[in-house]
C-alpha cells in the first residue's frame, strides 16, 4: 500500500497562487461573498500564508507558504470526531465524508494547522459557475466541515484507468490539481515509501522541514526551506 505525501520547494515557489485557484476549481470549493470573507469565513482548501515582508515599499517582497491539509500520520482531527466522518485511509490520506459529518467542528478546533473549513452558508456561487463544477466532487451542503483530500477523486479515476489498461498504477497517473498546475514545479507528489519516486528523492534534501514538528502529528506535507546558506 502506498503512502502518499507531498513536498513543496519554497525556493522554486514564486507565490503565483495558481495552486490555490486550481484547488478551488477542482474541488468545487465555495466562493463566499466579500462580507462573509471579512468575517473570516472565506473558504480555501489550500491557501497562501504570508509569513513576513522584506524590503520597503516600492520593492516590497512577501515571504509566503502554500498551506494545505498536512495529511498527518497521527491526525489530531480524527481523534475528536464523534461520528467518524474524518478518518485516515490505508494509503495515508485523511479523508472527510461529507454525508456523515454533523458539523460539530471539533476537528476544526483540534487541527493545529487550521486548514479545515466550515460551510457557513448555502452555496452562493453565481449561476454561471454551476457549469464549471467538477462532476467528480460533490458540492457540500451547508453545515459540514471540509478539507483537502489530496484530490482523492483523481486517485479513483487513475486506478480505474490503470485497471482498464491491465497495468499497475504509475506515479504520473495520480497527481493532485495543485501539483499538476504548478508552473515552477515546486510541488512534488507521490509515494513516500517508494524509493524511486520523485518525492522520496526530494526528501533527501537538507532543507526539509515540517510545520509544528513538536506536536508529533507527523505531517506528510514537507517543505524545503528557501534558505540558501
Amino acid at each position, binding site marked *: 500500500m502506498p503512502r502518499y505525501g507531498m513536498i513543496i520547494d519554497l525556493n522554486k515557489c514564486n507565490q503565483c497562487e495558481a495552486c490555490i485557484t486550481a484547488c478551488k476549481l477542482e474541488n468545487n470549493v465555495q466562493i463566499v461573498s466579500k462580507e462573509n470573507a471579512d468575517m473570516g469565513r472565506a473558504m480555501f482548501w489550500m491557501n497562501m500564508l504570508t509569513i513576513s515582508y522584506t524590503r520597503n515599499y516600492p520593492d516590497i517582497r512577501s515571504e509566503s507558504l502554500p498551506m494545505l491539509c498536512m495529511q498527518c500520520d497521527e491526525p489530531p482531527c480524527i481523534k475528536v470526531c464523534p461520528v467518524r466522518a474524518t478518518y485516515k485511509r490505508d494509503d495515508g490520506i485523511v479523508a472527510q465524508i*461529507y454525508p456523515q459529518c454533523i458539523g460539530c467542528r471539533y476537528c476544526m478546533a483540534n487541527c493545529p494547522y487550521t486548514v479545515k473549513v466550515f460551510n457557513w452558508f448555502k452555496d452562493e456561487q453565481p449561476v454561471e459557475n454551476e457549469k464549471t463544477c467538477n462532476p467528480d466532487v460533490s458540492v457540500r451542503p451547508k453545515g459540514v466541515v471540509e478539507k483537502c483530500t489530496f484530490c482523492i477523486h483523481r486517485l479513483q479515476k487513475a486506478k*480505474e484507468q490503470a485497471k482498464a489498461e491491465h497495468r499497475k498504477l504509475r506515479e504520473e497517473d495520480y497527481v493532485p490539481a495543485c501539483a499538476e498546475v504548478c508552473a515552477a514545479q515546486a510541488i512534488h507528489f507521490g509515494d513516500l515509501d517508494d524509493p524511486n519516486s520523485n518525492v522520496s528523492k526530494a526528501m533527501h534534501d537538507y532543507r526539509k522541514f515540517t510545520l509544528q514538528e513538536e506536536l508529533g502529528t507527523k505531517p506528510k506535507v514537507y517543505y524545503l526551506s528557501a534558505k540558501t546558506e
Partner: protein
Amino acid sequence: MKNKLLVFILILIGAVAGFFILSFHSKSSADNYPVPFSHYVHTTVHKIKCVNCHRGVETRELAGIPNIDYCSMCHSTLINSKSEREKIIYQLVKENKPIQWKVYYQVPDYVFFSHRRHVKLGKLECTDCHVDMTKQDSPDLKGFSQIIMPLCFNCHQRKNITTDCGDCHH
C-alpha cells in the same frame, strides 16, 4: 350542522386523495416513459443488447440514454407500418425532436458510481442492480429495486472489494 359539513368535507378530501393514489398505482408501466417505448420489444424480440443503446456502460461513468439521432439509425423508415407505436417515434425522428426521457435509477450526488468500473472491470451483469428489462416494457415503479447502500455493501464485502468510505463518497 357545522360538524356534519366538516365531516362531509373530510370524506370528500379522503375520496379525492384515495382516487389519486389508486390511479397512480394502477398506471400501466408504459406510462412511465414520455414515448411508448418498450424495452421488451427492443431487447427480446429484436435481440438488441443493453450496451448498444446505453453506450457509456463500458467506457464512462454514466450509462447514458440515446438521443433521437441514435434512434434514427433504425427508425428513419417505418419498419412495421401497422404499428401505431412506431409511427410516433417515426414522427419524432422526422421532426428531429429530442425525447425527454425520465431517469429512474439515480444515485445521490455525494455518491460516485462508475458503470465502467462495475460492468467492464468488475464483470457485473446489468440485472445485478437493475430490474431485468428484457421481460418488461419499462421499469415498474411498484417493484422498483432501489439502489441503497446495503446493496453496494453486500457485494463489496462478499467479493472482498474496498469498503473505504472515501472511495465512493468524495
